[in-house]
């Protein structure tokens, strides 16, 4: 194991020890800071509930992530293929994007109801922006002269896009997609807290209302673990696909 990884593990272990020590040593009430052991025990007790909630949240996040990525890349491709559409699409996207996504969640809840679809819609929006902006930056990064060179050899627009622009843009697209993983879960949870039938956000909301702060921490731990796993999977795929980096 590398030295960095060992140090990282050491840091994590120290944090857990410190946390446990402070929580137990000062006998802090659980609404201030519950001990890590207490939280883990609570996760085990509530595992059925947390698994169902986590599955709902993950489903919403994954569906929105898939839609958002597809829409983001498609929109960026449209702008590249039809350059005149840039001045029409970009200002609209920027205007919508100037509002923090969280501010749309009450509106989207009213439009789509408190079911799964409102969360998927909002995750799609958040992921779509991130991926669109990084994809566009990636496509734009290509050297004008390289495009002209390929053109002079008789390459069509499709082939320039496929052989030159896409490979050049992939590292940036992948970076956007990696950032979007964590964002997708957070947006799903934020929207669930404002109104839902199930999901981690809903569990957190109920725990807050019931002043069950060990419950809040349990759901936070699960959400964090899910985000890290999603992040790891996308990072792994990225390393497989973008082998030339």
């Amino acid at each position, binding site marked *: 194991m590398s*030295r*960095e990884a060992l*140090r*990282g593990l*050491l*840091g*994590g272990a*120290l*944090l857990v020890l410190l946390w446990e020590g402070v929580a137990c040593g000062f006998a802090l009430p659980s*609404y*201030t800071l519950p001990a890590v052991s207490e939280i883990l025990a609570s996760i085990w007790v509530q595992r059925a509930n947390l698994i169902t909630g986590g599955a709902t949240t993950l489903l919403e996040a994954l569906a929105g992530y898939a839609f958002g990525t597809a829409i983001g890349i498609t929109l960026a491709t449209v702008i590249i293929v039809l350059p005149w559409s840039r001045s029409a699409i970009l*200002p609209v996207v920027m*205007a919508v994007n*100037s*509002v*923090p*996504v*969280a*501010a*749309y969640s*009450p*509106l989207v*809840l*009213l*439009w789509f109801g408190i079911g799964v679809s409102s969360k998927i819609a909002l995750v799609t929006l958040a992921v779509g922006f991130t991926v669109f902006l990084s994809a566009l930056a990636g496509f734009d990064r290509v050297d004008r002269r390289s495009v002209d060179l390929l053109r002079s050899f008789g390459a069509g627009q499709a082939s320039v896009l496929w052989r030159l622009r896409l490979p050049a843009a992939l590292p940036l697209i992948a970076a956007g997609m990696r950032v979007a993983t*964590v964002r997708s*879960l*957070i947006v799903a*949870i*934020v929207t669930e*807290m*404002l109104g839902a039938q199930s999901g*981690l*956000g809903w569990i*957190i909301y109920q725990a*807050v209302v019931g002043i069950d*702060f060990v419950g*809040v*921490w349990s*759901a*936070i731990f699960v*959400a*964090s673990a899910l*985000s*890290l796993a999603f*992040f790891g999977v996308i990072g792994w795929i990225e390393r497989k696909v973008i082998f030339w980096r």
Partner: protein
Amino acid sequence: MSAALALTARRGAAGWRWAAPALLWLGRLILGLAIAAAVWEGAVLAFAIRPEYLPRLSAILATIAATPEAYVAGFLRTLLETLIGFAAGVVVGVLNGILFLRAPVLRDMLFPIFVVSQTIPVIAFGALVVLWFGNTLLAKAVIAFYLTFFPVTVNTLLGLQSVDPRQIALLRSFGASGRQLLLRLMLPAALPQIFVALRLGASLSLVGAIVGEWFGDTTGLGVILLQAMYTEQVTVMWAAILCAALLGTGFYAAVSLAERWLVFWGAEQ
């Protein structure tokens, strides 16, 4: 020295020269806004979109004009929370970056924890912060801070690490102290990279402030949003969204302007 000369020269020559492009830019901005407003108003009328989905822009503006005090108060409150959280996040982020550069052991130990901390859904964290700090302005600022400090830390570290080692060696050979090295060479060199994070943090700190207000406050744009949701007043909701857009864009523009001014050698990407 040469940087200082360049700065004075630029300030001297600037005078009226930047005024014309600025006016042109302002004109285009107003024209763009006018077109957007016309398209919005026209689309709602033409497609007969029901107001519970998308109200007319004029109706939204009329709502704001009816009770401007509530929106102004909410705007200022949210702005204050955003600014405090942002400022704290920038200071802590830059200090973290410097610390991590000086002490790689600390970096290796703390960085993974920072990464994990960013996977915590901000709203769940918000519930805890409000509990810890009470339902105060400070609690909202803490949430904004929590979202800002991480990107600033990462980019400060990246920027400091990318300083040309030959430049450091040169300054060292002239007998520059560690502090001079940091203030005169490394931080200015890292500035373009840091500003990328500041622009990101400008948006994120606003999210933190708005979400923080959802835990029962009395003023703020987030409060207006939430109350409008419970009473299903879509027009009020859109009014709050417009205010948030104004706040977000204004703050982002201010940070970009500061970037233009401070990173005048034009290393922007």
